[in-house]
């Protein structure tokens, strides 16, 4: 049976019964996740959802939002530059890669916002180091045991019943979601997220119960994750019964977004979903690969927004898209681009303050052939934390002036 939490509340069922159907949070987690009934105000910060899409590998910002007026762009990329006439103009001086056509309507309806030239001081061009910086908000020189979303969700943990964050995907769990006290689930697919045993219930009960007298930190870590997995799988099995209300294109990111939409529809109170799309490390033969990736991203994003609108949940969901760095301004000799620095970030959803923050990239003033950043990515995080999720950003990202991203 699929019962959304809000439906249960309107039916006046006991809070404890609702609590029992919540994902993943029970005695294993030090914080108290006592059930707190939400008000009817759907736009309340505690009902809002953030979906993070990570474009892994370093997305070429310059070929995503094309600086069509800049001759230096065309000079640096004799082979890879996108001709002005094939870009899609969406106003506000923004010219999209032709594969981003599904985003046109979103821009028209005010549901897209671009933050130009995001990055950080002294950019690192290693995928892994740069990704760690985006995930933890910290440099390698300081201790990095938690990610920004892990810290955020730990500080908000008492407000809901279900697990506060979910990673959707088969790759390893992103550092962004790590924290010292919360074990968050990763779900590869809703259908496979269960024990395949004829005695699954008995086994699930056994695995939830802690190992006796553990004095091993490692065993405790596994026990916490095992308990989370067992409780979460029961709840996700319920959500797997809900269906999407809109068609999606056939690609890997779409499948993940479809899962997110179904989980939202099923009434899960989870406030952060994290997913990624890999393949942006286009050192060679960039045009075809990049075009296909951008189209995957744009088309699944557009379908996701429509699905949420049909559900009536669109007002509650903001999608943030980022990549660990942009790419070198100058193309290389393999029809590709090497690792770069600053690049645009994207927000998708209702209540956005402006279609674009910041100016077009400055191709005159480069550092080592790479774009300088205008905004620190942590200003974007801080704006989302403060104005979308209604939390205090400083303890999560440090002292960065939040950007005014929402109305």
């Amino acid at each position: 049976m699929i019962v959304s939490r809000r439906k249960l509340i309107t039916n006046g069922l006991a809070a404890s019964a609702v609590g029992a159907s919540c994902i993943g949070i029970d005695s294993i987690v030090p914080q108290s996740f006592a059930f707190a009934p939400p008000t009817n105000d759907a736009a309340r910060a505690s009902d809002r959802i953030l979906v993070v899409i990570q474009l892994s590998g370093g997305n070429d910002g310059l070929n995503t939002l094309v600086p069509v007026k800049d001759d230096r762009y065309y000079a640096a990329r004799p082979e890879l530059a996108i001709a002005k006439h094939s870009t899609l103009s969406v106003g506000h001086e923004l010219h999209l890669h032709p594969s981003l056509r599904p985003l046109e309507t979103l821009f028209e309806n005010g549901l897209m916002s671009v933050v130009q030239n995001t990055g950080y001081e002294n950019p690192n061009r290693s995928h892994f180091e740069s990704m760690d910086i985006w995930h933890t908000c910290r440099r390698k020189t300081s201790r990095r045991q938690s990610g920004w979303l892990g810290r955020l969700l730990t500080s908000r943990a008492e407000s809901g019943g279900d697990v506060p964050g979910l990673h959707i995907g088969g790759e390893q769990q992103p550092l962004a979601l790590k924290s010292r006290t919360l074990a968050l689930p990763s779900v590869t697919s809703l259908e496979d997220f269960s024990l395949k045993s004829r005695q699954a219930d008995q086994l699930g009960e056994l695995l939830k119960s802690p190992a006796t007298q553990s004095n091993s930190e490692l065993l405790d870590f596994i026990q916490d994750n095992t308990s989370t997995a067992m409780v979460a799988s029961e709840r996700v099995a319920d959500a797997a019964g809900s269906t999407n209300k809109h068609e999606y294109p056939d690609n890997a990111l779409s499948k993940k977004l479809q899962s997110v939409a179904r989980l939202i529809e099923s009434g899960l109170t989870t406030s952060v979903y994290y997913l990624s799309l890999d393949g942006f490390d286009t050192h060679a033969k960039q045009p075809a690969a990049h075009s296909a990736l951008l189209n995957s991203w744009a088309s699944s994003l557009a379908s996701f927004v429509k699905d949420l609108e049909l559900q009536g949940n669109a007002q509650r969901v903001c999608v943030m898209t980022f990549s660990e760095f942009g790419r070198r301004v100058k193309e290389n000799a393999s029809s590709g681009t090497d690792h770069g620095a600053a690049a645009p970030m994207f927000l998708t959803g209702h209540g956005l303050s402006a279609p674009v923050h910041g100016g077009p990239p400055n191709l005159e003033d480069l550092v080592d052939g790479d774009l300088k950043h205008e905004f620190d990515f942590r200003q974007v995080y801080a704006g989302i934390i403060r104005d979308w999720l209604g939390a205090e950003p400083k303890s999560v990202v440090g002292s960065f002036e939040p950007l005014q991203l929402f109305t």
Partner: protein
Amino acid sequence: MLAQPNPQAVPQNDNWAPYLAPLDRAQVAHLTRRAGFGCSNAELDELSGKTAPEVLDFVSQPNSPQLDAVTKRLASAALAAGSVDNLAASWVYLLLNSPNQLSEKATLFWHGHFATSAEKVTDAGMLWQQNALMRQNALGTFAPLVQAIAKDPAMLIYLDSESNRKAHPNENFARELVELFCMGEGNYSEKDVQELARCFTGWEIRNRRFRKNRYQQDTGNKNVLGSSGKYDGEQAIDVVLKHPAVGNFLARKLIRFYVSEASLLEPESPAVQSLAEHIRKSNLNVGSAVRQILTSQQFFSSESVYQKIRSPAELAIGFARSLNITTNTQAISLDMRNVGQGLFRPPNVKGWDGGRAWINSSTLLGRSNMLHRIIHDDKTRFDGESTISDYLAKRKLDSVTEISEHFATCFIAVPLSPSRIKQVISAAEISDSSVRTSIKENQLRHLLHSLASLPETQIC
């Protein structure tokens, strides 16, 4: 009899000084699980009382000609079909059956170190060739391996470096050479990467083979890591390998893979520093470093015993080897992929992070499901028997407690208390007083699967 916890005290002076005492059964199990993928109960009995170097000799015996022939036949069929999945199954066959466990484990280490994936390199022949290259150099010195990898077609294609021209050098291989293969991030500058990239200009893959295109070679002077010269690629690798950071980098990766992912790994820890020193002094001889690690006081101490999370390979292959299981190798390799360790499909150029990164809700459910499938697969034989009941009868194991303890000692490293065993039996709804002949085959399999799914099973 349950194995007793036996970690030794943490060594005070030289972490890697040899552990000289004869090994008890649990220590032999510890060593064979880390050096390779474990061994059967009968082998544990046979090896108890031997020293660590003697056990290492046992797990590094050469493959029989028959085994080599079967593996070759399986791989040839996979290559003829162009199937990377079948190729992965061929390797699983070798992991399960090779008496040279030390070499196979080290080959898997290098596969994660010089990660190359079929997601991009679709030529199965190239992947198998790279696998052979790693096996050949698995326990030798580092330099020849790096030199060979730098010219390996699969690697260069994976890193988009099949062509590299003078005018705009492609930085990808040069960057990964210092960041992920030899030194680690933070030990070089962006300028070093760019200069290194110039050294590899003219290196390319044509018709599936490496060659140097001298017309595209940048013959000018380069400054790499503080020294300068008209370096070509080979010389550039020599320059990189002379850097002291290489020893530390290899030491940390080896400790993480063979010993523990925890405190030992702090870059400044004495364990890392002293192993790095050994590695530098031995001219980067990784084989001798692996042997030193596995026969050291540190390795048998409480900082190492039960301090590692099993990789999917260690879990699946180790489970099968511990019960003398023969089974569907194709299914095992697919299962391993589902829980994050597809052979020939590492997640990215950094390879598998390992440790706690193996564990999340999906992989925990998947690990349990993987062992469930092995236990229930029609092709599975338990030491040649098609039922667990016959397997147990052969070993004269009767009471449900004896049976559970037997399974636990086979594949669970952490000792289970009697009350934990009781808890598992009762959760399986089997009465404490049951004997084998009164327990249905399905219940026995469920009992085995329950033990295999415990959090304790994930540790070794």
